[in-house]
């Protein structure tokens, strides 16, 4: 799982997925060529590029959040819960912690990353101390987090003037400043995180130790790495990035926490697939996230122009992962 797949494998897997997706579209009465053409235009035409980038920002954030533990052979399936917690905290801090504008914004981002990071670390702690597999606990922990956020935004903290389960709008001076028409400063935050993850992965002892764990945990322990502490710290970083991603969406685009708004675009699962596609290698993960963001953004144009539902792009992403997993296995068999 931790070996980054070779580029030709990825290209081949994407090719297979495109063909399988075309068969699905044709079988359901659509025109696959027109559908794919609309995806390409919708994602890459100059007018649409900012939208693609805007979609890529949270998707890259969530992809990096998953990529970090994946590099060490760990899977964080609880991104949805961490994203939602981060978004909720970021929406509440400017409302209930009276600080001057920009300060309140920074406090909101920090608090979001901290809360989501601790929540993710809880899954690692459960594995280290109580032997509960993180793969499962991280996912199961998502449901209480989402339920709690849903309850808080629907009842005690609901904006009474709106009919929707959402919190009160945050004050304008606590929002992330816009960057052009669609983007906001949150894009910078994710860019900084992306660079930091790449540098940590390639140039730091921590990154080296994490890769070592991914390749061979027993050897890593033999080399003196405290696996338990490493797992908790890694998951804290992972959840922190997921929480920060949620904060950038809330502070930069939605300006309040709305129940379901962070989960519906599927950033978590697209991000997970992007990270899996690159085996957790950060540069590859970012590339895959950009590719999937283009696919998702183009999906809107496809749905509008050809009436093929845009959820097809989720099917395509899953197919890429499945074909890659099979190819990856074949390679392992060829070279034992």
């Amino acid at each position, binding site marked *: *799982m931790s070996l980054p797949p070779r580029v030709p494998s990825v290209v081949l897997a994407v090719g297979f997925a495109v063909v399988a997706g075309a068969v*699905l579209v044709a079988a*359901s*009465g*659509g025109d696959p060529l027109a559908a794919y053409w609309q995806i390409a235009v919708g994602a890459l035409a100059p007018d649409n590029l900012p939208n693609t980038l805007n979609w890529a920002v949270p998707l890259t954030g969530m992809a990096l959040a998953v990529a970090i533990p994946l590099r060490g052979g760990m*899977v964080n*399936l609880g991104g949805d819960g961490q994203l939602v917690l981060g978004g909720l905290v970021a929406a509440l801090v400017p409302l209930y912690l009276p600080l001057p504008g920009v300060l309140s914004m920074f406090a909101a981002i920090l608090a979001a990353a901290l809360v989501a990071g601790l929540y993710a670390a809880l899954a690692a702690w*459960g594995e280290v101390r*109580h*032997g*509960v*597999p993180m*793969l*499962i*606990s991280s*996912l*199961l*922990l998502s*449901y*209480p987090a989402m*339920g*709690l956020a*849903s*309850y808080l935004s*629907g*009842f005690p903290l609901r904006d009474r003037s709106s009919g929707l389960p959402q919190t009160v709008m945050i004050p304008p001076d606590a929002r992330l400043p816009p960057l052009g028409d669609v983007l906001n400063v949150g894009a910078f935050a994710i860019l900084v995180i992306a660079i930091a993850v790449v540098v940590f992965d390639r140039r730091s002892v921590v990154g080296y130790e994490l890769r070592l764990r991914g390749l061979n945990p027993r050897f890593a322990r033999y080399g003196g790495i405290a696996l338990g502490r490493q797992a908790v710290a890694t998951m804290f970083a992972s959840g922190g990035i997921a929480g920060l991603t949620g904060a950038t969406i809330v502070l930069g685009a939605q300006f309040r926490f709305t129940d379901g708004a962070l989960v519906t675009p599927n950033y978590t*699962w697209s991000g*997970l*697939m992007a990270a*899996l596609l690159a085996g957790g290698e950060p540069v590859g993960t970012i590339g895959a996230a950009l590719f999937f963001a283009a696919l998702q953004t183009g999906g809107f144009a496809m749905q509008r122009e050809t009436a093929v*539902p845009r*959820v*097809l*792009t*989720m*099917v395509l*992403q*899953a*197919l890429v*992962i*499945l074909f890659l*997993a*099979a190819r*990856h*296995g*074949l390679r*392992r*068999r060829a070279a034992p």
Partner: protein
Amino acid sequence: MSVLSPFLVHSAVQAITPILLAALAGVLCGQAGVFNIALEGEMLVGAFAGVAGSYLAGSAVAGVAAGALAGAALALILAYGSTVLRGDAIVIGIGINLLASGLTAYLLRQMFGVSGTFDSPAIVGLAPIAIGGLAGVPLLAAALSRQSVLTWFAWALVVLVAVGLFRTPFGLRLRGLGEQPDAAATLGVDVQAWRVGAVLAGGVLAGLAGVQLSLGAVSVFSEDMSAGRGWIAVVAVMLGRNNPLGAAAACVLFGFADAFGLRLQGQGLPNQLTDIAPYVVTLAALILSHRRRQA
């Protein structure tokens, strides 16, 4: 309020069935040495195919058949991907779950022209089986009467799988695959073929679990209606250590947690809070079982 009200018992038994069927699928795969986390996706596809089959053919039997087939079809990816192609079972499982979520949402729009929930009077649900003669024993009557055929099937299967696994040569071979695949191969057992078979049989059961969700208590399909139940089944398999009886006991616990949540909802608690009951109980059970094992 009595904790064991007839309503609670009835809805608990109803809630146990899908988790139990999926857990039995997990037991078969676990015994054969395949870690199956694709139960969630197989269940979801089964739920969709159940509704689609029932709606198109106008019969619940067609729904059951379609659900079982669809579960097996999706399981085929794991069956071959993790054995013949030697892919990573966890990555494949994640891929299958996401494929199921996307594919059912896609087909929901393309086949029925709706998103979210598909509800139609033409969907024939599973008829509840009334049991007469239990009127004197209220709790038992609540538990047993007016349950779907799949509930009866699931409990019969618990016994069947337990006997099959531990009392027959067939079960001995299957267990051998999980414990010592090399030894099993030496004795002439075709490891890959058996594993493919176990995963496919698991797909049928997980598909039926989905049918119980969409045609058992209600007759609708909604997107992502499996809502983590496949994962709870994975936990039940772990708690039961691949033993069908242990897994069934865990499923009973989760089913009652689920029904208890419903009950609290009846007391005025918002469903956002009560819905999390099964997940919290599941996590607590995982921690407690490990504590006991260490002690």
